[in-house]
Protein backbone atom coordinates (compact mmCIF):
# COMPACT_ATOMS: atom_id res chain seq x y z
CA UNK A 1 0.00 0.00 0.00
CA UNK A 2 1.38 3.34 -1.07
CA UNK A 3 2.24 5.68 1.76
CA UNK A 4 1.39 8.67 -0.40
CA UNK A 5 -2.20 7.53 -0.64
CA UNK A 6 -2.56 7.62 3.12
CA UNK A 7 -1.03 11.08 3.37
CA UNK A 8 -3.18 12.43 0.54
CA UNK A 9 -6.31 10.90 2.03
CA UNK A 10 -5.65 12.52 5.38
CA UNK A 11 -4.79 15.86 3.74
CA UNK A 12 -8.00 15.86 1.72
CA UNK A 13 -10.06 14.96 4.75
CA UNK A 14 -8.50 17.74 6.82
CA UNK A 15 -9.11 20.28 4.06
CA UNK A 16 -12.73 19.20 3.72
CA UNK A 17 -13.31 19.43 7.47
CA UNK A 18 -11.63 22.84 7.33
CA UNK A 19 -14.36 24.17 5.03
CA UNK A 20 -16.85 23.67 7.84
CA UNK A 21 -15.08 26.35 9.83
CA UNK A 22 -13.86 28.77 7.22
CA UNK A 23 -17.01 29.41 5.25
CA UNK A 24 -18.92 30.56 8.30
CA UNK A 25 -18.97 34.02 6.79
CA UNK A 26 -20.94 36.58 8.74
CA UNK A 27 -24.01 36.73 6.55
CA UNK A 28 -26.48 39.16 8.07
CA UNK A 29 -29.72 37.37 8.84
CA UNK A 30 -32.81 38.85 7.30
CA UNK A 31 -36.38 38.87 8.40
CA UNK A 32 -39.16 37.53 6.25
CA UNK A 33 -40.16 39.97 3.44
CA UNK A 34 -43.83 39.57 4.41
CA UNK A 35 -43.05 40.60 7.94
CA UNK A 36 -41.07 43.59 6.67
CA UNK A 37 -44.02 44.72 4.54
CA UNK A 38 -46.34 44.37 7.50
CA UNK A 39 -44.07 46.57 9.56
CA UNK A 40 -43.55 49.15 6.81
CA UNK A 41 -47.23 49.98 6.54
CA UNK A 42 -47.60 50.54 10.29
CA UNK A 43 -47.94 54.24 11.00
CA UNK A 44 -46.63 53.61 14.50
CA UNK A 45 -43.09 53.48 13.19
CA UNK A 46 -43.16 57.28 13.01
CA UNK A 47 -42.79 59.55 15.99
CA UNK A 48 -43.55 63.26 15.81
CA UNK A 49 -41.09 65.99 16.66
CA UNK A 50 -43.29 66.88 19.64
CA UNK A 51 -42.96 63.38 21.05
CA UNK A 52 -39.20 63.49 20.58
CA UNK A 53 -39.00 66.89 22.25
CA UNK A 54 -41.06 65.63 25.17
CA UNK A 55 -38.84 62.60 25.58
CA UNK A 56 -35.68 64.71 25.51
CA UNK A 57 -37.08 67.21 28.02
CA UNK A 58 -38.29 64.50 30.35
CA UNK A 59 -34.92 62.79 30.09
CA UNK A 60 -36.44 59.50 28.95
CA UNK A 61 -33.67 56.94 29.53
CA UNK A 62 -34.99 54.61 26.84
CA UNK A 63 -34.51 57.20 24.12
CA UNK A 64 -31.64 56.77 21.68
CA UNK A 65 -31.50 59.33 18.89
CA UNK A 66 -29.49 58.24 15.88
CA UNK A 67 -28.51 60.88 13.35
CA UNK A 68 -28.11 59.09 10.01
CA UNK A 69 -26.67 62.06 8.13
CA UNK A 70 -22.99 62.50 7.29
CA UNK A 71 -20.49 63.37 9.98
CA UNK A 72 -20.15 66.94 8.65
CA UNK A 73 -23.86 67.62 8.90
CA UNK A 74 -23.89 65.96 12.28
CA UNK A 75 -21.15 68.22 13.56
CA UNK A 76 -22.92 71.28 12.24
CA UNK A 77 -26.20 70.64 13.99
CA UNK A 78 -27.97 67.74 15.57
CA UNK A 79 -30.50 67.01 18.23
CA UNK A 80 -29.32 66.95 21.81
CA UNK A 81 -27.90 63.58 22.76
CA UNK A 82 -28.00 62.15 19.24
CA UNK A 83 -25.29 59.76 18.12
CA UNK A 84 -24.06 59.68 14.55
CA UNK A 85 -24.39 56.54 12.41
CA UNK A 86 -24.24 57.62 8.75
CA UNK A 87 -26.48 55.58 6.46
CA UNK A 88 -23.61 54.27 4.38
CA UNK A 89 -21.61 53.26 7.43
CA UNK A 90 -24.27 51.11 9.05
CA UNK A 91 -22.35 47.88 8.57
CA UNK A 92 -18.87 49.16 9.43
CA UNK A 93 -17.11 50.10 12.66
CA UNK A 94 -19.36 47.87 14.77
CA UNK A 95 -22.16 50.37 14.26
CA UNK A 96 -24.69 47.57 14.47
CA UNK A 97 -23.90 47.27 18.16
CA UNK A 98 -26.02 50.37 18.79
CA UNK A 99 -29.15 48.51 17.79
CA UNK A 100 -31.12 45.81 19.46
CA UNK A 101 -30.28 46.93 23.00
CA UNK A 102 -33.15 45.77 25.21
CA UNK A 103 -35.28 48.63 26.49
CA UNK A 104 -33.85 51.20 24.10
CA UNK A 105 -36.02 52.98 21.57
CA UNK A 106 -33.96 53.95 18.57
CA UNK A 107 -35.22 57.00 16.68
CA UNK A 108 -33.65 57.79 13.35
CA UNK A 109 -33.20 61.43 12.40
CA UNK A 110 -32.16 62.92 9.09
CA UNK A 111 -32.81 66.20 7.29
CA UNK A 112 -36.18 65.03 6.09
CA UNK A 113 -37.41 61.52 6.81
CA UNK A 114 -36.20 59.81 3.60
CA UNK A 115 -32.74 58.78 4.75
CA UNK A 116 -34.07 57.93 8.18
CA UNK A 117 -36.69 55.75 6.51
CA UNK A 118 -34.00 53.96 4.51
CA UNK A 119 -32.08 53.34 7.69
CA UNK A 120 -35.22 52.07 9.33
CA UNK A 121 -35.80 49.56 6.52
CA UNK A 122 -32.18 48.40 6.64
CA UNK A 123 -32.19 47.83 10.39
CA UNK A 124 -35.62 46.25 10.23
CA UNK A 125 -34.45 43.82 7.58
CA UNK A 126 -31.54 42.95 9.79
CA UNK A 127 -34.11 42.05 12.41
CA UNK A 128 -33.75 44.87 14.94
CA UNK A 129 -36.89 45.83 16.83
CA UNK A 130 -38.10 49.08 18.45
CA UNK A 131 -36.74 51.41 15.81
CA UNK A 132 -38.61 54.54 14.79
CA UNK A 133 -38.36 57.42 12.38
CA UNK A 134 -38.76 61.04 13.38
CA UNK A 135 -41.44 62.30 11.03
CA UNK A 136 -40.28 65.26 9.00
CA UNK A 137 -36.72 65.06 10.23
CA UNK A 138 -34.67 68.06 11.31
CA UNK A 139 -36.47 70.38 8.90
CA UNK A 140 -39.70 69.67 10.70
CA UNK A 141 -37.90 69.98 14.06
CA UNK A 142 -36.81 73.49 13.07
CA UNK A 143 -40.32 74.47 12.02
CA UNK A 144 -42.18 73.04 14.96
CA UNK A 145 -39.87 73.11 17.96
CA UNK A 146 -37.20 75.71 17.29
CA UNK A 147 -39.45 78.19 15.51
CA UNK A 148 -43.07 77.35 16.20
CA UNK A 149 -45.72 79.41 14.44
CA UNK A 150 -48.60 80.77 16.39
CA UNK A 151 -51.84 79.18 15.22
CA UNK A 152 -54.58 81.35 13.86
CA UNK A 153 -56.94 82.86 16.38
CA UNK A 154 -59.71 80.65 15.08
CA UNK A 155 -57.71 77.42 15.52
CA UNK A 156 -58.84 74.65 17.83
CA UNK A 157 -57.89 74.69 21.48
CA UNK A 158 -55.65 71.66 21.06
CA UNK A 159 -53.59 73.60 18.54
CA UNK A 160 -52.97 76.21 21.15
CA UNK A 161 -52.01 73.56 23.65
CA UNK A 162 -49.51 72.17 21.17
CA UNK A 163 -48.29 75.66 20.49
CA UNK A 164 -47.73 76.41 24.13
CA UNK A 165 -45.87 73.12 24.55
CA UNK A 166 -43.71 73.99 21.57
CA UNK A 167 -42.98 77.43 22.94
CA UNK A 168 -41.90 75.79 26.15
CA UNK A 169 -39.77 73.31 24.25
CA UNK A 170 -38.31 76.16 22.24
CA UNK A 171 -37.22 77.82 25.45
CA UNK A 172 -35.77 74.55 26.67
CA UNK A 173 -33.74 73.95 23.55
CA UNK A 174 -32.73 77.48 22.58
CA UNK A 175 -32.99 79.46 25.75
CA UNK A 176 -35.13 82.07 23.98
CA UNK A 177 -37.16 84.39 26.12
CA UNK A 178 -40.88 84.23 26.50
CA UNK A 179 -43.07 85.67 23.85
CA UNK A 180 -44.24 88.73 25.69
CA UNK A 181 -40.79 89.95 26.42
CA UNK A 182 -40.24 89.75 22.71
CA UNK A 183 -39.17 93.17 21.48
CA UNK A 184 -37.27 94.46 24.47
CA UNK A 185 -38.41 97.95 23.76
CA UNK A 186 -41.36 99.04 25.69
CA UNK A 187 -43.39 101.84 24.37
CA UNK A 188 -43.66 104.15 27.25
CA UNK A 189 -46.47 106.45 27.00
CA UNK A 190 -45.55 109.56 28.72
CA UNK A 191 -48.57 111.09 30.06
CA UNK A 192 -48.05 114.59 31.06
CA UNK A 193 -50.12 115.84 33.76
CA UNK A 194 -52.04 118.79 32.72
CA UNK A 195 -51.05 121.75 34.64
CA UNK A 196 -53.84 122.71 36.74
CA UNK A 197 -55.24 126.10 36.62
CA UNK A 198 -52.20 128.00 35.84
CA UNK A 199 -53.86 130.64 34.00
CA UNK A 200 -57.31 129.51 33.81
CA UNK A 201 -58.95 132.68 33.88
CA UNK A 202 -59.27 134.50 36.98
CA UNK A 203 -60.29 137.45 38.04
Amino acid at each position, binding site marked *: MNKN*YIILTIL*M*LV*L*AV*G*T*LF*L*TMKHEPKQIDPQELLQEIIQPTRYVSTDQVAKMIIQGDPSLMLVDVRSIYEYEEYTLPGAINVPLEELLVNDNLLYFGIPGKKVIFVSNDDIQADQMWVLTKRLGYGSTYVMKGGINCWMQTIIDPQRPAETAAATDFETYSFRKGAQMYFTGAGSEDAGSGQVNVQVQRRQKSNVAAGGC
Partner: protein
Amino acid sequence: MGPLIPNGVIGEGWDFVIAILLGIAFGFILEASGFSSSRNLAGVFYGYNFVVLRVFFTALIVAMVGLMYFDYVGWLDLSKIFILPTYLTPMIVGGVIMGVGFVVGGFCPGTSFTGIAIGKLDALFFTIGLYVGIFGFSLAYPLFAKFFDSGAMGNVTLTDVTGIPAPYFALAFTVVALAAFWGTMFIEKRVRKNMKQYKF
Protein backbone atom coordinates in the same frame (compact mmCIF):
# COMPACT_ATOMS: atom_id res chain seq x y z
CA MET B 1 -11.25 39.02 -7.84
CA GLY B 2 -12.94 36.20 -9.74
CA PRO B 3 -14.85 35.16 -11.79
CA LEU B 4 -12.29 36.72 -14.11
CA ILE B 5 -14.31 37.58 -17.21
CA PRO B 6 -17.53 38.88 -15.53
CA ASN B 7 -15.39 41.00 -13.23
CA GLY B 8 -13.46 42.44 -16.16
CA VAL B 9 -10.05 41.13 -15.06
CA ILE B 10 -9.79 39.41 -18.46
CA GLY B 11 -11.40 40.85 -21.60
CA GLU B 12 -14.60 39.40 -23.10
CA GLY B 13 -13.01 37.91 -26.21
CA TRP B 14 -10.59 35.74 -24.30
CA ASP B 15 -13.12 33.11 -23.26
CA PHE B 16 -12.54 31.02 -26.41
CA VAL B 17 -8.79 31.14 -25.99
CA ILE B 18 -9.17 29.99 -22.39
CA ALA B 19 -11.59 27.29 -23.53
CA ILE B 20 -9.04 25.92 -26.00
CA LEU B 21 -6.28 25.92 -23.40
CA LEU B 22 -8.53 24.19 -20.87
CA GLY B 23 -9.63 21.70 -23.52
CA ILE B 24 -6.04 20.82 -24.34
CA ALA B 25 -5.25 20.37 -20.66
CA PHE B 26 -8.38 18.27 -20.15
CA GLY B 27 -7.61 16.02 -23.09
CA PHE B 28 -4.02 15.65 -21.97
CA ILE B 29 -5.04 14.62 -18.45
CA LEU B 30 -7.70 12.20 -19.76
CA GLU B 31 -5.22 10.46 -22.02
CA ALA B 32 -2.52 10.49 -19.35
CA SER B 33 -4.93 8.83 -16.90
CA GLY B 34 -5.57 6.04 -19.39
CA PHE B 35 -9.04 7.18 -20.37
CA SER B 36 -8.46 6.52 -24.03
CA SER B 37 -8.81 2.78 -23.40
CA SER B 38 -12.37 1.52 -23.34
CA ARG B 39 -11.27 -1.48 -21.27
CA ASN B 40 -10.02 0.87 -18.62
CA LEU B 41 -13.26 2.79 -18.67
CA ALA B 42 -15.59 -0.16 -18.68
CA GLY B 43 -13.52 -1.70 -15.88
CA VAL B 44 -15.58 0.29 -13.39
CA PHE B 45 -18.63 -1.76 -14.27
CA TYR B 46 -16.81 -5.09 -14.05
CA GLY B 47 -14.83 -4.23 -10.96
CA TYR B 48 -11.28 -4.68 -12.23
CA ASN B 49 -10.35 -1.05 -12.80
CA PHE B 50 -11.69 1.94 -10.93
CA VAL B 51 -9.42 4.57 -12.44
CA VAL B 52 -12.43 6.49 -13.81
CA LEU B 53 -14.00 6.73 -10.41
CA ARG B 54 -10.73 7.73 -8.79
CA VAL B 55 -9.80 10.41 -11.34
CA PHE B 56 -13.22 11.97 -11.53
CA PHE B 57 -13.88 11.83 -7.80
CA THR B 58 -10.45 13.34 -7.12
CA ALA B 59 -11.11 16.14 -9.58
CA LEU B 60 -14.52 16.68 -8.02
CA ILE B 61 -13.49 16.90 -4.40
CA VAL B 62 -10.34 18.92 -5.07
CA ALA B 63 -12.29 21.41 -7.17
CA MET B 64 -15.16 21.53 -4.69
CA VAL B 65 -13.07 22.05 -1.57
CA GLY B 66 -10.67 24.31 -3.47
CA LEU B 67 -13.46 26.60 -4.67
CA MET B 68 -14.67 27.00 -1.11
CA TYR B 69 -11.24 28.11 0.01
CA PHE B 70 -11.02 30.43 -3.01
CA ASP B 71 -14.35 31.96 -2.03
CA TYR B 72 -13.20 32.40 1.55
CA VAL B 73 -9.89 34.00 0.59
CA GLY B 74 -11.73 36.26 -1.86
CA TRP B 75 -10.25 35.00 -5.12
CA LEU B 76 -13.59 33.86 -6.45
CA ASP B 77 -17.11 34.99 -5.71
CA LEU B 78 -19.12 31.77 -5.71
CA SER B 79 -22.42 33.66 -5.82
CA LYS B 80 -21.52 34.93 -9.31
CA ILE B 81 -20.82 31.51 -10.78
CA PHE B 82 -23.13 30.16 -13.46
CA ILE B 83 -25.13 27.20 -12.20
CA LEU B 84 -26.60 24.83 -14.74
CA PRO B 85 -30.40 24.78 -14.50
CA THR B 86 -31.83 21.58 -13.07
CA TYR B 87 -34.50 19.51 -14.84
CA LEU B 88 -34.87 16.65 -12.43
CA THR B 89 -36.53 13.77 -14.31
CA PRO B 90 -34.98 14.45 -17.74
CA MET B 91 -31.58 14.55 -16.05
CA ILE B 92 -32.12 11.22 -14.31
CA VAL B 93 -33.28 9.63 -17.58
CA GLY B 94 -30.34 11.21 -19.42
CA GLY B 95 -27.98 9.87 -16.78
CA VAL B 96 -29.33 6.35 -17.18
CA ILE B 97 -28.97 6.53 -20.99
CA MET B 98 -25.46 7.87 -20.61
CA GLY B 99 -24.55 5.09 -18.18
CA VAL B 100 -25.92 2.38 -20.46
CA GLY B 101 -24.06 3.89 -23.40
CA PHE B 102 -20.91 4.01 -21.29
CA VAL B 103 -20.97 0.35 -20.32
CA VAL B 104 -22.02 -0.83 -23.80
CA GLY B 105 -19.78 1.42 -25.88
CA GLY B 106 -16.88 1.67 -23.48
CA PHE B 107 -16.52 5.42 -23.81
CA CYS B 108 -18.10 8.62 -22.70
CA PRO B 109 -18.15 11.50 -25.18
CA GLY B 110 -14.97 13.19 -23.98
CA THR B 111 -12.91 10.02 -23.71
CA SER B 112 -13.97 8.86 -27.17
CA PHE B 113 -12.11 11.85 -28.60
CA THR B 114 -8.97 11.01 -26.68
CA GLY B 115 -9.37 7.50 -28.10
CA ILE B 116 -9.52 8.89 -31.63
CA ALA B 117 -6.48 11.04 -30.93
CA ILE B 118 -4.37 7.94 -30.34
CA GLY B 119 -5.96 6.09 -33.26
CA LYS B 120 -8.43 3.69 -31.67
CA LEU B 121 -10.96 2.26 -34.06
CA ASP B 122 -13.62 1.57 -31.44
CA ALA B 123 -13.42 5.18 -30.39
CA LEU B 124 -13.91 6.26 -33.98
CA PHE B 125 -17.04 4.18 -34.35
CA PHE B 126 -18.29 5.36 -30.98
CA THR B 127 -17.92 8.97 -32.12
CA ILE B 128 -19.71 8.30 -35.38
CA GLY B 129 -22.52 6.80 -33.37
CA LEU B 130 -22.43 9.84 -31.12
CA TYR B 131 -23.03 12.19 -34.02
CA VAL B 132 -25.71 9.98 -35.55
CA GLY B 133 -27.43 9.99 -32.17
CA ILE B 134 -27.21 13.77 -31.88
CA PHE B 135 -28.59 14.14 -35.37
CA GLY B 136 -31.42 11.70 -34.68
CA PHE B 137 -32.33 13.41 -31.44
CA SER B 138 -32.37 16.81 -33.12
CA LEU B 139 -34.75 15.57 -35.80
CA ALA B 140 -36.99 13.86 -33.28
CA TYR B 141 -36.81 16.72 -30.79
CA PRO B 142 -40.49 17.74 -31.14
CA LEU B 143 -41.43 14.30 -29.80
CA PHE B 144 -39.34 14.80 -26.67
CA ALA B 145 -39.75 18.55 -26.26
CA LYS B 146 -42.36 18.29 -23.53
CA PHE B 147 -40.38 15.82 -21.47
CA PHE B 148 -37.13 17.67 -22.22
CA ASP B 149 -38.39 20.82 -20.47
CA SER B 150 -40.30 19.14 -17.66
CA GLY B 151 -39.38 19.39 -14.01
CA ALA B 152 -37.56 22.69 -14.34
CA MET B 153 -36.15 23.76 -10.97
CA GLY B 154 -34.10 26.72 -12.14
CA ASN B 155 -30.46 27.39 -11.36
CA VAL B 156 -30.46 25.78 -7.95
CA THR B 157 -27.78 24.22 -5.81
CA LEU B 158 -28.16 21.52 -3.19
CA THR B 159 -27.87 24.23 -0.55
CA ASP B 160 -30.79 26.13 -2.10
CA VAL B 161 -32.97 23.04 -2.16
CA THR B 162 -32.15 21.57 1.24
CA GLY B 163 -30.99 24.60 3.22
CA ILE B 164 -27.95 22.68 4.44
CA PRO B 165 -24.77 24.79 4.15
CA ALA B 166 -22.41 23.86 1.31
CA PRO B 167 -19.46 22.79 3.53
CA TYR B 168 -21.50 19.87 4.86
CA PHE B 169 -22.05 18.59 1.33
CA ALA B 170 -18.36 19.09 0.58
CA LEU B 171 -17.41 17.09 3.63
CA ALA B 172 -19.94 14.36 2.87
CA PHE B 173 -18.77 14.04 -0.73
CA THR B 174 -15.15 13.97 0.35
CA VAL B 175 -15.76 11.25 2.91
CA VAL B 176 -17.75 9.19 0.37
CA ALA B 177 -15.07 9.70 -2.28
CA LEU B 178 -12.21 8.76 0.04
CA ALA B 179 -14.11 5.72 1.27
CA ALA B 180 -14.72 4.77 -2.38
CA PHE B 181 -11.00 5.09 -3.16
CA TRP B 182 -10.04 2.66 -0.46
CA GLY B 183 -13.01 0.37 -0.97
CA THR B 184 -12.48 0.05 -4.71
CA MET B 185 -8.80 -0.70 -4.16
CA PHE B 186 -9.75 -3.89 -2.34
CA ILE B 187 -12.42 -4.79 -4.90
CA GLU B 188 -9.85 -4.34 -7.65
CA LYS B 189 -7.40 -6.63 -5.91
CA ARG B 190 -9.94 -9.42 -5.44
CA VAL B 191 -11.31 -9.22 -8.99
CA ARG B 192 -7.91 -9.06 -10.62
CA LYS B 193 -6.77 -12.16 -8.74
CA ASN B 194 -9.30 -14.23 -10.68
CA MET B 195 -8.41 -12.75 -14.04
CA LYS B 196 -6.08 -14.67 -16.31
CA GLN B 197 -4.61 -11.60 -17.92
CA TYR B 198 -5.03 -7.96 -17.48
CA LYS B 199 -3.91 -5.58 -20.18
CA PHE B 200 -4.94 -2.04 -21.07
